[in-house]
């Protein structure tokens, strides 16, 4: 069975044709639109060598809409002539006719009619001849029948000037038999159907080849945010490493837990209005663990637990001030304090990933809100070597294997070290995290045993996400102004397998 009746007809005629046939002629013969024949040619072409088709362009004269009307109804001048009775017609009435204006002037110049301006009730039009030959109509009818070549060049150009005739370029196919010509080509199926599967007809059915360069249709779906996809991966890594998630469901924290508990002195610049969001309402935290607060105060002001302390007058009202937490270490401090209250001490591995707030100047890499990733291990006798070992495992799960450690200063860790990794794209070492052993001045007032060390490290969630997804401006990643197309288009997050994009910006 051929692909549609037109294709079928085409093949039959081609079988008996001498050499080949013209698609336009075939359309006329079949009485179908030329486009239908073109479709048939294309579908037969797709079958392979059944037919050969050569694209030709031919010029052809066609009537315009007005030309069609004249071929049907006669020229304007003829129509004007016919409407004039032997006793004449008032010129004003003639002008009212549909063909009046054009027809009048043409009929005048043909000398078919005359005007009597002296008539009693205004100018009157009379026939001059008895009978007229409507040449315009006859010529247009010839064109209509496809016999435009019977007209002279001059006649055709005159009709074209009157916008009755137009020359069109027609793209036609010269179709001839192909090397695999057959009148009995079978129709190619586009899709495998349930019927074909149940009847088994798919075995004998040719299938139309797929167009693999088509864009395809995207399925309707929801999308997860890239930053939170990366968050999921980091959670997964920590869980794989046996780390328990700490509660971080409190954006609001007292300065006590955010700073004092971490042995961060009250004059520390991080506690400045320029760096931290303080609350106006509720301005102060009312409930703080009294005994613990006292131990913290003493350690800051006078020292103890082997420390010189900072030797300043520590103030409770400063510690009570509520802030939007500036780091998730505030949550770690609470978790370690809770751990210290449980006797006997049991070793723990903790992690958290959540939002923190800084009252900073905003730029391409800094927002007032960002996410921190934090890992903590508390056990007897942990060393700097252990910290580096955990970091090596953690970062290798991110696909980062070249690590280097630099001494640094953090207010609540000692020793402290920054973690650097070699960035292939930038050809240099870039900082990827910060780490250290929590200070005894932080741990001992909590009540943790003296020989317990707590190793910890942290990094931001935004920076690895920006590197992963090739985003240079943090405002294109987070917040209500992001382009949702970015969310729609963001690919899977596989931290350990994909090569990192070459062009990235070292975020501060």
């Amino acid at each position, binding site marked *: 069975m051929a692909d549609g009746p037109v294709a079928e007809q085409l093949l039959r005629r081609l079988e008996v044709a001498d050499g080949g046939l013209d698609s336009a002629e075939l359309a006329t013969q079949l009485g179908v639109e030329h486009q239908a024949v073109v479709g048939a040619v294309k579908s037969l072409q797709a079958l392979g060598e059944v037919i050969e088709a050569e694209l030709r362009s031919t010029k052809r004269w066609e009537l315009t809409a007005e030309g069609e009307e004249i071929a049907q109804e006669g020229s304007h001048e003829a129509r004007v002539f016919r409407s004039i009775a032997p006793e004449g017609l008032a010129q004003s009435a003639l002008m009212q006719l549909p063909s009046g204006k054009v027809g009048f002037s043409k009929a005048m110049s043909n000398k078919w009619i005359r005007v009597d301006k002296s008539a009693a009730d205004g100018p009157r039009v009379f026939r001059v001849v008895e009978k007229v030959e409507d040449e315009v109509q006859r010529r247009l009818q010839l064109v209509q029948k496809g016999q435009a070549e019977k007209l002279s060049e001059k006649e055709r150009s005159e009709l074209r000037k009157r916008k009755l005739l137009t020359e069109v370029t027609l793209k036609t196919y010269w179709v001839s038999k192909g090397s695999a010509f057959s009148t009995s080509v079978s129709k190619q199926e586009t899709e495998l159907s349930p019927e074909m599967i149940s009847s088994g007809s798919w075995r004998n059915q040719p299938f139309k080849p797929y167009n693999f360069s088509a864009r395809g249709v995207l399925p*309707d*779906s*929801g*999308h*997860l945010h890239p*930053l*939170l996809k990366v968050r*999921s991966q980091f*959670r997964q890594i*920590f*869980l794989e490493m*046996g*780390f*328990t*998630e700490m*509660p*971080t*469901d409190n954006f*609001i924290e007292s300065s006590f837990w955010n700073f004092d508990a971490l042995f961060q002195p009250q*004059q520390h610049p991080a506690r400045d209005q320029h760096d931290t*969001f*303080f*609350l106006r*309402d509720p*301005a102060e935290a009312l409930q703080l663990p009294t005994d613990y607060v006292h131990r913290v105060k003493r350690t800051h002001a006078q*020292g103890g637990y*082997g*420390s*010189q*302390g*900072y*030797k300043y007058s520590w103030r409770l009202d400063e510690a009570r001030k509520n802030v939007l937490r500036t780091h998730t270490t505030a949550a770690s401090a609470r978790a370690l304090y809770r751990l210290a209250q449980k006797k006997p001490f049991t*070793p*723990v*591995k903790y992690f958290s990933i959540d939002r923190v*707030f800084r*009252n900073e100047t905003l730029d391409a890499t800094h927002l007032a*809100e960002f996410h921190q990733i934090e890992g903590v291990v508390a*056990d007897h006798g942990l*060393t*700097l*070597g*252990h910290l*580096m*070992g*955990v970091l090596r*495992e953690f970062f290798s799960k991110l696909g980062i294997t070249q690590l*280097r450690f*630099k*001494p640094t*200063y953090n207010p609540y860790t*000692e*020793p402290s070290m920054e973690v650097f990794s070699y960035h292939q794209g930038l050809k240099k070492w870039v900082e990827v995290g910060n780490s250290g052993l929590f*200070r005894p001045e932080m741990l001992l007032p909590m009540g943790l045993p003296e020989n317990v060390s707590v190793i910890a490290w942290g990094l931001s969630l935004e920076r690895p996400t920006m590197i992963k997804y090739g985003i240079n401006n943090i405002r294109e990643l*987070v917040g*209500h*102004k992001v*382009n*949702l197309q970015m*969310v729609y288009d963001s690919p899977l997050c596989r931290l350990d397998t994909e090569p990192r994009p070459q062009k990235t910006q070292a975020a501060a």
Partner: protein
Amino acid sequence: MPTVSVKRDLLFRALGRTYTDEEFDELCFEFGLELDEITSEKEIISKEQGNLKAEGASNVVLYKIDVPANRYDLLCLEGLVRGLQVFKERIKAPVYKRVMPNAEIQKLIVTEETAKVRPFAVAAVLRNIKFTKDRYDSFIELQEKLHQNICRKRALVAIGTHDLDSLSGPFTYTAKRPSDIKFKPLNKTKEYTACELMNIYKSDNHLKHYLHIIENKSLYPVIYDSNGVVLSMPPIINGNHSKITVNTRNIFIECTGTDFTKAKIVLDIIVTMFSEYCENQFTVEATEVVFPNGKSNTFPDLAYRKEMVRADLINKKVGIRETPENLAKLLTRMCLKSEVIGDGNQIEVEIPPTRADIIHACDIVEDAAIAYGYNNIQMILPKTYTIANQFPLNKLTELLRHDLAAAGFTEALTFALCSKEDIADKLGLDISATNAVHISNPKTAEFQVARTTLLPGLLKTIAANRKMPLPLKLFEISDIVIKDSSKGPPFFPGRCAEIFARHQSIGKLGVLHPDVITKFELTMPCSSLEINIEPFL
């Protein structure tokens, strides 16, 4: 982290050798510094003010080095060189000595009026110093670095340095009414009262930042010499009379402040750094400070403290196995002169006055680790055995996120901070009805409150994405902050419902009120559902 800018060639000359940029970067990394930038004065000016202004500026190569925030002894070329030379065992750490003068000791008398505004003062004298242009610049720059860092922008401590030969002691540190203080300040040709000065400096780009420290006090701190010459009005400005120059030979240094410990540290740092250029190197002439209670003390402190640390503690904290002798050597390279004593496992560590950052054994442990080389430490995995647990709220959140996306919703990530308008006016609510938490020091209106509902963030996301094809279906699972239960956003009448689960109300859903939609600059209908997921934990 403070950044110290030093001339490269000057630095190399002082270090006694040259380095390639890479070599010096490596040395910094090992020591805990960071070679942040290699530049020149010309480059800096051209970057900040354009090529035109940079013309004629110096092409001398500058190293900008990031220094840890607690290492005040590395804030100038002199300190950096000393630290690195001792680290590389090219020199021994100098011993800083306080000496009594041959003549009468300089005195600074503190009156009780200062208690109300800036109660502490310490002082010292650098005798027979020899400046060069570079040394003098470094001396001024160190004071500025200290002011910006440990001094907390002069709030805790302010430093004044004076040409002692132009003054005559004893000095008096007192506090007076601003109208009663009159002097010719640094680099001015005329006398002004303190009131006038505070006005003049309001338009001074540098000094205007310090005015608030004393502005609202009834008395201003001021230091006089025995002839009534004003040395300084801390923490704002020195007097012009005692101004130091590159030719000054004897310097009187005073530090006043609200934190006595830090004032002493700051004084120690200045004199330890620059006594290098005194005729008797590393000696500092004592000054007597007489307190309001009549007692007195001599400064600078220049105290050396001895700490005892067990070698096995260092090994155990770092994760290395070094002999006590080796550990002592490592510490000595960090300017912590150490020796093995007692049972052979004890190390006696001498903390010099330059190392105020050493307040606990853990600080000594860190220095041993730095000298050993962090990257030489063997990495091992802790044997800590634990079972991991997810935080239930986050576990539920992860499950919900995936199913919401599977249901065709796209995840938004919006800010937890917003304007009052977002959570109140735009939702047709009074701010007091929202029970929102208010921020006292927002820099812009975007950070006035913590959000009480996720809805404004989602609506703003839609408003920013109006060009995207509809429908837009968004979700967010995140924290909101409320002091107590609060009112939700208004819905279209008859098109909303309260959602109950497990016999309690958990939220609302409905078609948003057109007024809300309009206020978020949207034109299309919008429906929302917001629930609290905590009851499902």
